[in-house]
Each structure stands twice: as structure tokens, then as C-alpha cells.
């Protein structure tokens, strides 16, 4: 029995349209409120400053997490709300490794080797945590948001335990350089790390089939399976990658602030990441995704944050507005509203089966 065809009003039909529009809107707001000085760049102590560089600097963690989140979202059709927490735990591990090293050989300087080793271990932790989430999702078929709820609850306490509740001070010269800028390089280090990550992702997508497999699994898992793709492996891999992304983000965050604060580090970044993914034109229901879109979305969110701050909107009120934003986005993406919009825009009424229809809950 042929079904009446329905064409959905997909946001993905206009891939980069959404984030660019919002971006331009925000830039416009900034220009209106602050004049063209918004684009000013100055060189201070050999480092580039300015409103735009500060956006690039501030968004570093978010961009990296968002790319990983878009990958997970694509293949697992859900979002990971434990990303901030994973960052907290991995950065706690990082701090702990440094602390242990110094405890064992007091007086020695914190060298690049030590820092990188600690970083590597924290990435391993991130991969492990990602694997935990990934297993629940791919093997136990738990929805990503719920699976990651477990770490979301317990994670910060875990981080607290690891860093010994001491909120350790990490004011070492190397850390400062990572958190801020390396000598002789005008661009701040976090920005460089972000660029490196973006390039790394581009390389991975070029040299492997990860993007193809992830998209296939997200669009039609059964068909992907019948073509020889292993959905479990694909989903697990995406979560592990996200875990590593969170580690990198945690590393940047802890370097920026110079100390590890389990409670506040990367707080609510998951909300921002989900918004950035959606804003980037990626369907929250999984499937095709665009890294470009995700990156633009992340920077847009950061501009939003900084614009609101500049307009003297309080930090908490921002949370409020983002929550509202998410609600509006979800409403617009809901099947009921989508069907309504489709009717409005395509003027074609598909015969709607009243019953039995699968209740989409």
C-alpha cells in the first residue's frame, strides 16, 4: 500500500542559513550598541586583543565540545549532557597528576613533558568516560540523554574527590602559557588549540569513513547494518571521541583559570553545546550533520554570551534566556509544529491517518 508522501520542512534544507543569520544579527546588535569599534584589534604585549579575538578565545572549549557533540548527535540521535562533567573529571585528573608529580619530586619545575603526559592521561580518562556513556547507548540501547544523566549526577562529586577538594592552584608558567599565550605567538594558545582540533577532525573525516558511517547510522540504522556497518562500534566511537574532546576542553579551561574548581568548571556548557549544534543547522534527531555549521553555531553562542554580558544582562538571566531559547527551538522542531508548517508552506494536505499512529512521545 503506497503511503502518501510527506515532505518535511527540514531545517537541514538550509544548512548554514540559520547560524549565519543569527551571527549577523548579533554582530549587528553589537555594532548598534557599541559602534564599529567592535571590529577593532589592538596589539598589547605582543598579543592580539579586541572584541572579536575575545570571542575566539572564550569559545575555545565550546567549539571543541560542540564538534564532538554534533558527531554523537548525528549517530546516536540524542545529546550528551555530561560533557561539562567529563571535562571537570578529566581536568581533575590532570591536576592530580601534576600534583602527584610534584609531590614525588618536589622542587622540580613543571616542564612541557610533564604537562603533556598529564594531558595525555586526562584524555585517556575522557575516553574511558566516553566509553561508559557509549556502552550504555550502543549496547544497552539507552537514550543518550538518560545514559549521560548518570555522569551528570555523580560526575562533579567524582571530580571533587579526585582533586582532593583542594581546588588546587595550577599557576605554573607553562600552564599560564597554555591558558593564555605562548611567547612570541600573537594569537592566544586556546585559539591555536581550537584550530588544531578543527584541522584534526577535518583530517579524520577525510581519511576515514567516520562521517559516512555516523550519518548512515543516524539516518537509518537498520539499512546501515544491512550494508555491513556496525552501529554499535560507530556509536561507541563517537562517544569516545566526544570524551576526548571534553578532556581537551577541560585542559583549556583549567589552564585559563589557573586553578581547578570542580563545581564551576565548564558549568552548563552542555546547554551551550546542544544549542550550538542545533543552531548550526544540525537536526537534533540525528542524521546528516555539518561540522562547519556546528563550529559557526558555537562561535555564535559565544558571541551571544558576550553580547548579553556587554548589554549588562546578568549571568543568571543568560541561563534563563538560553533555557527559553531551547524550548522555542524544540517547539519549532516538534513533529506537530513541523506538520503545521509543512501544510502552511507547501499547501499540500497529506491524508492523515488518525489511527493507528505510533505515538511519538
Amino acid at each position, binding site marked *: 500500500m503506497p503511503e502518501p508522501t510527506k515532505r518535511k520542512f527540514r531545517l537541514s534544507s538550509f544548512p548554514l542559513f540559520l547560524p549565519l543569520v543569527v551571527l549577523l544579527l548579533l554582530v549587528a546588535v553589537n555594532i548598534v550598541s557599541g559602534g564599529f569599534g567592535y571590529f577593532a584589534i589592538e596589539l598589547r604585549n605582543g598579543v592580539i586583543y579586541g572584541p572579536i579575538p575575545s570571542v575566539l578565545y572564550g569559545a575555545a572549549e565550546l567549539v571543541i565540545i560542540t564538534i564532538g557533540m554534533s558527531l554523537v548527535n548525528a549517530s546516536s540521535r540524542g545529546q550528551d*549532557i555530561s560533557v561539562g562533567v567529563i571535562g571537570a573529571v578529566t581536568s581533575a585528573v590532570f591536576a592530580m597528576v601534576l600534583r602527584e608529580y610534584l609531590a614525588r619530586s618536589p622542587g622540580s619545575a613543571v616542564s612541557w613533558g610533564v604537562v603533556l603526559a598529564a594531558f595525555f592521561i586526562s584524555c585517556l580518562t575522557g575516553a574511558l568516560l566516553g566509553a561508559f556513556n557509549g556502552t550504555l547507548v550502543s549496547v*544497552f540501547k539507552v537514550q543518550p540523554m538518560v545514559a549521560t544523566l548518570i555522569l551528570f*549526577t*555523580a560526575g562533579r562529586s567524582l571530580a571533587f574527590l579526585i582533586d582532593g577538594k583542594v581546588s588546587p592552584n595550577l599557576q605554573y608558567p607553562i600552564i599560564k602559557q597554555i591558558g593564555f599565550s605562548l611567547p612570541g605567538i600573537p594569537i592566544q594558545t586556546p585559539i591555536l588549540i581550537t584550530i588544531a582540533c578543527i584541522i584534526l577532525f577535518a583530517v579524520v573525516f577525510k581519511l576515514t569513513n567516520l562521517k559516512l558511517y555516523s550519518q548512515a547510522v543516524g539516518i537509518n540504522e537498520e539499512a546501515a547494518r544491512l550494508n555491513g556497518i556496525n552501529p554499535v562500534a560507530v556509536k561507541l566511537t563517537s562517544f569516545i571521541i566526544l570524551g576526548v574532546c571534553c578532556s581537551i576542553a577541560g585542559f583549556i579551561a583549567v589552564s585559563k583559570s589557573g586553578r581547578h574548581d570542580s563545581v564551576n568548571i565548564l558549568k552548563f556548557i552542555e546547554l551551550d553545546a546542544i544549542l550550538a549544534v542545533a543552531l548550526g543547522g544540525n537536526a537534533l534527531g540525528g542524521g546528516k550533520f555539518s561540522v562547519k555549521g556546528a563550529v559557526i553555531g558555537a562561535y555564535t553562542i559565544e558571541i551571544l554570551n558576550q553580547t548579553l554580558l556587554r548589554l549588562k544582562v546578568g549571568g543568571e538571566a543568560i541561563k534563563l534566556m538560553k533555557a527559553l531559547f531551547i524550548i522555542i527551538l524544540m517547539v519549532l522542531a516538534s513533529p506537530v*509544529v513541523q506538520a503545521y508548517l509543512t501544510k502552511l508552506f507547501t499547501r499540500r494536505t497529506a491524508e492523515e491517518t488518525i489511527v493507528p499512529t505510533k505515538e511519538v512521545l
Partner: protein
Amino acid sequence: MERRKRRESISNSNLLFLISLVIFVAMYTVGFFRFPTSFRNLQTFVDFFNNNAPLIILTCGMSVVMIGGGIDISVGGVTGLVTMCCAVFLNGRAGSVAGSIFLALGIGLAFGALQGFLVSYLHIQPFIITLAGMFLANGLLTVIHKDPINAALPAFLKLREADIKIQWLGTVNRLGNFIPLRISYCMIIALVVVTVIAVLMKWSRFGRNLYATGGNSQSALMLGINVKRTKFFSYVLCGLLSGVAGYVFIMQTGAGNVGNASGFEMKAIASSIIGGTLLTGGVGNMIGSPIGALSLLVINEIIRSAGINSNYQAIISGLLLCVFIVLQSLVVWIRGKGSPTLPPWLQFKRDSR
């Protein structure tokens, strides 16, 4: 096929409820012997209710929503918001106890209704909407008043102090004074809520419809139940109970505080699950939920008495949650459903072929 022809044995929910009861009794016994000072006291047992009435009320509300196949992560945030709003209101010019009660219920209802509408009528995933609701409540909370604020209205303070003392069930404290058993109004409210909800779920049409909806929402629709309306009301009820819990909270602590009730939603979910409410929906009983809450609380109390770092509490809660989620799926799987089934909001959405 043969499994189903077995004699009628303990249903899945009852099995899980029994497990939670066993855990509760076991843990309490451990506490009884290991930490006699705390546990060998009837007041301690009663205090579980006195001090944790908000959680018990929230657990009831959460169970209601979960039985219908949904979930509400915003309850902790809403409870916190209610405490702050009531505190501010009570200190304001027009403050009154009656007014504050209405305010509490009103806020709870508003959240419940909004979320219920979005989930039931617009078919949006409950998880993300109530997550946004939680952030919304948290945001509103800090916007309304950032600092802790004590509710100072005399009438309210009187309400706080009121309680029931049972003379003949008292204990002798360390100083040798006889202290009668103290049952606070909070506990009474909690017990009333549990009873009312239990009656509602077992004997009212709404309750039975909700079970049906959670069991198989498509069938429920075919059987003539207005699924959307039923689910909507389950969220409204949960929101209302969040309001009640918020009011009880401020009755206990007397102050509005940014950190109030944070993490309560997780505890409520964990308690419901431990008490035998299946994540899949359609299964759960209202006696099990408070027992589940008590189990959780007893474990936390043991941890506290043992002097273990209180950080472990959150970790243990998370761990328990994880264990019970997996346990539930396995119990259902082994007992003959064929494959681990998941609640509607946990499953992947596929367009039906």
C-alpha cells in the same frame, strides 16, 4: 511461549518493590547494629520522614509521571524556585501564609502545565523539555533573589514550629531528659500526599488510565483513553506536588536558598526506580516509592554516620541509579519480554515503516 503459561507469579513491579524493601530493611539493620546511637532511636526513623518530607513528596510526583511513561527532571529546580519565591513573598508587604501557599501551588502548576502541554500535545521529548524547565527554574531562582533569605513572617514562623508531640513514644536523650516523639506537620503532609496519590492511582479512573497509557500508549489510545489529556494531567500533578514539596521545604528550613533542593530530581528518580517503578512506564506502586526514598536516605545516613566523605553521596546516588536502570532492563528481559525494553522517552524514534 511456555514462560507465559507459567503460573501467575510475582509481577515484575512487585519483585522490584520487594528488592527495595529488602534493601531498606537490610540497610536499616546494618545501621541499627553499626551505629546504634543514630539508628536505635524511634525518633531517627520518624525523622527520616520529618526531614525528608519534600523528597518523599517529590518521589510520589515523579512516580506518577513515570508510570505514565514520561519523566520530569525539573522538579528539583521548581522546588527550589518555590522556596525562594515564598520566602520573598512572605517577607514582602502583602505576605501571608495563605498567599504563600497559593503561590507555591501556582508556580508548581504553571510549570507542570507548560511542560505537560509541550510533552503531551506537541509530542516533544519530555527529557529535553523538562531539562530546559530545570534550567528555567534555576535561572528564575537566581534572578528573583540571589542571596539566602529567611522568611520572617510571624504567622509563618508559628506554622513552622507547630508539630505533634506523642508523649508516650519518647526517648531519653544524652542529657537524661525525656523528649517526646516529635512528628512535624511536614511529615504529616508527606504521609497525606502519599495516601492521596496511592488512592488516586489505584482507584480513580485517571490513575488506571495513566497505568494503561504507560503500559502501551498506542493500545490505550485504541481502547478509548484520551492519552494526551491523561499524560498532560500527570505532568500537572507532578508540578503541583513540586509546589507542595517546595512549601514543605521552606517550612522545614525557613529560608530560601539558591542551592535548595538541587539534585532532588535525581534522588526522586532514583527513589522511584528503587521502589519498583519501571522506567518503561505502566508499572509502579505508591507504597514502593516512599520505601525507595527511605532506602536511599538510609544509605546516605549510614555513609554520614560512618564519617565517609559526603561527596560520596552523589556518587552513590548516581551508582544506584545506574545499577537499578540496568537491573530493571534485565529483570524485564529475563522474565520474558524478549529483549530489554525501554520507556518511550528512552527509545529512539523511528518513523514507522
